[in-house]
């Protein structure tokens, strides 16, 4: 199978998976007991008015019609209107998605930077007390659900030391802008970002650290590591510039997959820190029977997973050392 054929096949598979996700979503959210008008039931004195609302939302159509309409809508790049907020879902969800991306990207960036350095050190010092302790520490972090890590951090940094704000994405009363730089690149935002990002970083640290350690153990068997030592280069140079540099390649694919998965994992962190992101919005919209928003949020998270899995596969193609170096 040639490279081109592989990529084409992989893209077809991507499309199939997306279609399946959309269909799954549709089925899932049509299983909801009750309907979106429940929330307003007290506001509708008569059945007729409630019925009118149901018709307005198109919920009286046969399921397959609703399904086709939903698919058509998505193909046009629309998510429909929120039944709760009565406004286009896209308008509501994209700022939230951006918030989530910024949060999780920061968390992963920290996790992978520290994880890789830490994992490299563990591999380098194999069999040492440092390695054993490191493994236990990393597993301990990974064994803690996100909410637990978040709660500890809040307890420590907010309640005990009062160093960081409790929740939200920024101080109040500033300019509300969608401009990326104005919105995210300022001290106040970063202060709010710190704890949630750290929570994610701690939980996500284990994968790169352990993987890095394992690939390090492989790479350390390579002749060139011995050679670099023979050249008299300092240990740190050999470790980070050579051994770690070589071990890091397989991690790129893992990082891509983790990025996708993290979008879905943001739910808990966003809930703990009241972060206005797509995960928290999903939980909220599910609980108020706002299908279009819940579906869009779910779809965005699912699409992130699928696309990043795809990116990981392609990255693997280009980065596989056997392809490149032999």
């Amino acid at each position, binding site marked *: 199978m040639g490279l081109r054929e592989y990529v084409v096949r992989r893209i077809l598979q991507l499309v199939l998976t997306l279609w399946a996700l959309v269909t799954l979503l549709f089925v899932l959210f049509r299983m909801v007991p009750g309907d979106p008008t429940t929330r307003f039931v007290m506001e509708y004195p008569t059945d007729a008015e409630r019925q009118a609302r149901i018709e307005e939302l198109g919920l009286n159509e046969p399921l397959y019609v609703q399904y086709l309409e939903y698919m058509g809508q998505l193909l046009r790049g629309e998510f429909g209107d929120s039944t709760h907020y009565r406004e286009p879902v896209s308008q509501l969800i994209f700022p939230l998605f951006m918030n989530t991306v910024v949060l999780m990207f920061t968390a992963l960036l920290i996790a992978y930077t520290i994880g890789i350095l830490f994992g490299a050190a563990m591999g380098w010092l194999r069999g040492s007390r440092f390695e054993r302790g490191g493994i236990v520490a990393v597993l301990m972090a990974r064994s803690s659900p996100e909410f637990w890590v978040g709660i500890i951090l809040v307890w420590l940094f907010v309640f005990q030391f009062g160093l960081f704000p409790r929740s939200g994405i920024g101080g109040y009363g500033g300019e509300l802008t969608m401009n990326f730089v104005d919105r995210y690149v300022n001290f106040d935002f970063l202060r709010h970002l710190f704890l949630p990002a750290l929570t994610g970083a701690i939980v996500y640290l284990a994968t790169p650290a352990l993987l890095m350690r394992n690939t390090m153990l492989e790479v350390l068997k390579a002749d060139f590591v011995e050679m670099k030592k023979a050249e*008299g280069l300092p240990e740190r140079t050999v470790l980070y510039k050579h051994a770690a540099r070589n071990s890091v390649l397989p991690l790129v694919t893992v990082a891509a997959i983790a990025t996708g998965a993290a979008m879905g994992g943001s739910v808990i962190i966003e809930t703990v820190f009241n972060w206005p992101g797509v995960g928290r919005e999903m939980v909220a919209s599910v609980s108020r029977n706002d299908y279009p928003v819940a579906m869009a949020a779910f779809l965005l998270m699912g699409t992130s997973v699928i696309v990043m899995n795809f990116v990981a596969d392609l990255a693997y193609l280009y980065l596989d050392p056997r392809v*490149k170096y032999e």
Partner: protein
Amino acid sequence: MTLLTIDGLKMYYRSDDGYVRAADDINLELERGQTLGLVGESGSGKTTIARSVIRLLPDNAEVIDGSIDFDGTEITELSERALRKQIRWQEVSMIPQNAMNSFDPVYTVGQQIVQVIRYHEDGVSKKEAKDRGRRLFGELGIDPDRVDDYPHQFSGGMAQRAMIALALCLEPKLILADEPTTALDVVIQDRILETITGMQEEINSAMILITHDISVVSETSDRIAVCYGGRIVEQADAETIITNPRHPYTLGLRNAFPDIGDTDTDLVSIPGTPPELVDPGEGCRFAPRCPFAVDECWDVTPQPEEFDDGHIVECHRADEADELRERAEQKETWEEVRERPSQPQGAGGRR
């Protein structure tokens, strides 16, 4: 003038079953500009001996006794930092067996040459360092522009030349060449070897050439030491070892390669496996494979004995060498060993 003196070196490896005596009672001397051939099977300790000079050994290696004097510096007592900064590559460089795998695949060869030059020599700019690499490439018969290539873009022979360039870039006093041609095509082997010795003479550095192939060292070395079971069983100038060896193991080695000695003899390999080095006990370590072993050989460890000038042998029957030499040329002599009931060996695997 003596460059390197190894005196009574015992370099052991710790293991769960006890010490592995990888280098036991080693005595060696090397003059400036001279080439020493270190010959032996794999596991004979030749690599350990050579690498002891730069202490490039696994974490579990331990100097039990003895000294290594390199150009007035006691290697065994040197700090890690000083060793790195002053000895490794600056004074002693290395040519490994597999050049391809010995370059870091993610950097160009040029970058790796520049890196090592700039680390050891202060005040050299990147450009100067790279120019030196290009010059070396030229002298070694590689297109200088290829310094910008990645290791995987080189052929095996080219990679080995590039490695030589790397080894010579600091003009070291000693080069440890560890089976530098084994991985290569037979046709290229000789040319590479010539290149190495040619360059070595040019910058007047000494060399320890490690090989299992006695024919390689016979042509290039001034002196040859034969290793067996962690000991140097025989050493002398190259001529003596080739024409007048006294240790049965050397006799056997000589038989294993066609171009030395009489050309019409059949190729004979030495039967059996190298000895167990954990707690080897008393007795000659070669005895189980030696066709000439007598009772004394099993019980008493032979001590080094000097014959002619600098010809040192560890064998109880070294003085019977002439007779043994004749018998050793017979294939049957070695076949007998194979049929001999084997002596019980220690349990457990080798290292």
